[in-house]
């Protein structure tokens, strides 16, 4: 139950962040409708944000594991960031 909620909150947060960053990048002058080039930009931007998120996620957990295996204290600090 808790794990499902965590996963949902996580997906929701990812979508909110995509919304924020891709609106900023792709809709520079909001007009009376979402134009086709703005939509194309949003599709690219969403894909790239997801890619960055996956990559960063992987790098972060690798580092947490590495620190945990060398010094237990450092890994706690990495988690606490």
């Amino acid at each position, binding site marked *: 139950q808790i794990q499902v909620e965590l996963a949902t909150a996580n997906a929701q947060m990812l*979508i909110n962040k*995509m*919304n*924020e960053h*891709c*609106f*900023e990048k*792709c*809709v*520079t*002058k*909001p*007009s*009376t*409708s*979402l134009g086709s080039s703005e*939509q194309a930009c*949003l*599709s690219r931007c*969403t894909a790239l944000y*997801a890619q960055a998120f996956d990559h960063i996620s992987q790098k972060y957990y690798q580092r947490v594991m590495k620190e945990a295996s060398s010094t237990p204290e450092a890994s706690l600090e990495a988690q606490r960031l």
Partner: protein
Amino acid sequence: RELQEFIDQEQAKAKMAATVHELTDTCWKKCVTGSISSKFSRNEVSCLENCVDRFLDTSFYILNEVKQQRNQLH
């Protein structure tokens, strides 16, 4: 049960009120880029007019994108 409904409604209201503050923040940053005159310029008015609906369009567009990508996996 009625109490629960009341709490849910109040929470939904509070959430929407918070969303209005965030949208104003986002649209102010996007649309009010120059210095502050006594009224908004024509460009600023048009930008602010459309900012909320385009932000929500963006939100629905992204939700759709994500759903489609998920469906392609299954």
